[in-house]
């Protein structure tokens, strides 16, 4: 009788490695989630106490040991809107140019891609310095919402360009050809077919960039953020307070740590809630686009 091809117990080892590997993957995934929940729970635990209507609608008072954080909330929302106004149009149009117009193998695209990749690796404090030199000093905007928005816009530009490009890259060429073959121009094809198809994914990129912008401190340090500016800004040339900077200020140079610590946690909690709300809104917007596209 011929020897069996597979010896007895041949499959024990591979099954054991399988179980071991998946066990590890599972434990690691769960622990990541647990850590996230721990951070979130800690901030809610510490910050929820101060969170009430007055905290959200009043300016800080008594040397920032009492009162609310309303100017910082408004400031952060303004900076997010301002940076979006800068980065979204420019970033989306660059992404379209890179994927739809420019020759894929040409040096222009490779150069732009290299630059955007490098740009996204630049530390945000460097953006802050650059923003100060260009917008605050050279263009004379002063420490202002305008200068801060432009700086934050530049910071989020690489991410917006990149996600737009990736979103459009995944759309099959057959769809483009179908449109061109009907006598549509390339612009019509992009505007009516390609861009709507890419929109759900582009939106995801935009939201990620907004989330990043909302939490950045370094870029607005020298370009916009005010230590204490209790009234609301009246023009784009005003300074404003911002949540991350406010958090930094009262945690590092406070006068009364005991009184200020709850405010710091409350501020952190508000920041997290803002990002959360924006993520939810983005999800709804994405769903809406998908429904309108009738992909499903």
């Amino acid at each position, binding site marked *: 009788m011929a020897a069996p091809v597979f010896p007895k117990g041949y499959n024990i080892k591979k099954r054991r490695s399988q179980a071991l590997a998946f066990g590890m993957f599972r434990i690691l995934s769960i622990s990541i989630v647990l850590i996230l929940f721990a951070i979130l729970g800690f901030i809610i635990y510490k910050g929820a106490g101060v969170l009430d209507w007055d905290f959200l609608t009043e300016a800080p008072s008594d040397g920032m040991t009492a009162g609310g954080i309303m100017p910082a909330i408004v400031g952060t929302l303004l900076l997010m809107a301002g940076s979006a106004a800068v980065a979204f149009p420019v970033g989306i149009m660059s992404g379209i140019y890179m994927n739809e117009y420019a*020759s*894929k*193998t040409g040096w222009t695209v490779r150069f732009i891609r290299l630059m955007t990749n490098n740009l996204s690796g630049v530390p945000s404090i460097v953006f802050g310095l650059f923003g100060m030199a260009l917008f605050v000093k050279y263009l004379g905007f002063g420490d202002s919402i305008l200068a801060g928005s432009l700086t934050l816009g530049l910071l989020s530009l690489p991410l917006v360009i990149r996600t737009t490009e990736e979103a459009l890259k995944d759309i*099959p060429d*057959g*769809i483009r*050809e*179908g*449109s*061109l*073959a*009907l*006598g*549509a*121009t390339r612009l*019509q094809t992009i505007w*009516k*077919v390609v861009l*709507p*198809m890419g929109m759900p994914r582009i939106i995801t990129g935009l939201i990620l960039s907004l989330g990043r912008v909302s939490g950045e401190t370094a870029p607005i340090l020298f370009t916009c953020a005010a230590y204490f500016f209790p009234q609301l800004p009246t023009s784009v040339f005003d300074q404003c307070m911002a949540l991350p900077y406010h958090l930094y200020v009262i945690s590092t140079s406070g006068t009364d740590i005991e009184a200020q610590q709850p405010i710091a946690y409350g501020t952190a909690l508000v920041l997290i809630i803002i990002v959360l709300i924006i993520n939810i809104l983005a999800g709804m917007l994405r769903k809406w686009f998908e429904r309108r*596209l*009738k*992909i*499903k």
Partner: protein
Amino acid sequence: MEKIEARDVNFYYGDFHALKGITMDIPQNKVVAFIGPSGCGKSTFLRLFNRMNDLIPGARLDGKILIDGQDIYAPGTQVDELRKNVGMVFQRPNPFPKSIFENVAYGLKVNGIRDKKFIARRVEESLRGAALWNEVKDKLDASAYALSGGQQQRLCIARAMAVSPSVLLMDEPASALDPISTAKIEELICELRSQVTIVIVTHNMQQASRVSDMTAFFYMGEMVEYDDTRVIFTNPSKEATQNYITGRFG
């Protein structure tokens, strides 16, 4: 009367010589089939008629292609005008992620038609023309993606016919479809021949013999033989053609 005239067409992808000195006439309101093994250049040739190869970097054309006597590669040619007149149906159904109605209306809209009543009428005519109306008339607002593959391909035919082209290019239109859907597409081709000149690339020789008036056999970038379909399939003059249609091809 000749609808399309190709004059000594040579086409290159970079250094690769894809089409070698092809000259042929395609008569008006006929169905002409291009057959040949994969990579023989038949699709490349087809895509020259609506300048779809313009998009390929490093591609180059020598020779002339005339449609209705006009050199379509002459400087100053309006490519969008050309493509409106020379419709195309692709191998894979490629409906837009829009409603059934919007898919058919798309070509009218991008060419500047705004009259809603006219568009609605034209959409219905085109869907009827593509034998799809009865299946979709109650769900014109539904996604085109909800249709089966065969229905999607007929939608693409309706979409192409909506802008009333005078030539319809079909690049293996049934190769991704089941036999019943294929039969429907073939029926459609036979009905559309009164309105348009049809050029169809196919791997399926039965299909070529069923639907076409004339057949061209391509091999290695050359057009080996071009004649009445009956002649090609019963009494070809070239040995290579004979070998290919009898499946003895090496």
